[in-house]
């Protein structure tokens, strides 16, 4: 496959801030109206969303308890 055809350029622009909850009410309504009508974008939107959730989950690494103790030890002595 040589070239990708993107039928929804507009959606590209709107998708990121939509997913980041950075659109105002009017823009969000517009984005949702487009998603309701466009199966292609809906599919891509869901993919993007699930990818983000996945990235966030797998990147979460808990701090070692020893580090927490070291940080607490940095407090100014009373």
């Amino acid at each position: 496959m040589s070239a990708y055809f993107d039928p929804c350029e507009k959606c590209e622009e709107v998708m990121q801030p939509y997913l980041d909850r950075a659109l105002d009410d009017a823009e969000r309504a517009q984005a949702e109206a487009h998603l309701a009508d466009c199966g292609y974008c809906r599919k891509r939107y869901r993919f993007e969303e699930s990818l983000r959730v996945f990235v966030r989950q797998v990147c979460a690494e808990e701090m070692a308890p020893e580090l927490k103790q070291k940080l607490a030890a940095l407090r100014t002595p009373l």
Partner: protein
Amino acid sequence: MSETTPTEPQQLATEARDRVRFEEEALELADQVYRVARRLVGSREEAEDLMQETYARAFRSWQSYTPGTNLRAWLLRILTNLNIDRGRRKQRAPEMQPLEEGDYFLYNKIEESSREPISEQDAVVERLSQDDVVTALSAVPHDFRDVLVLVDIGDFTYRDAAQILDIPIGTVMSRLHRGRRILKGELADKAVE
């Protein structure tokens, strides 16, 4: 004119109380700060060093924090500055090679590589392992990764990320967009390997 300035011991007591409160609040946020720190740098050791430097500096300069503002963002600002100061950004800003396939490169590539069309988007994501994601993220150049990690892992708003990194909000958005594209490009390579 009778000025009622608090006596020195009172002042000291108030200050000590405020400082203790600050320290406790900062420590309560340590888990969240660490989650971001861990992905800003390449190793657990570096993240731990950075956390200790950050908290040491925060505890020293606690009076420059304005109570009621976003303490997590304040701590991350110290942390990202230290990270830059320590010369961990050896990697230069990447050349702007275009990803002509567009933002859905990963999706398209995975879909192409499979025999049957993927109907469930989760199936696409499930082909990736944790290692794939962590490795792909570490391959994203620092300028883009900082924004990506703050917004996508730290759950900061564009505005917070802009303040933390001291860059305009438009730069946050463009770096974020580009960072995600790079990440997806890296993931696509792994998903079809």
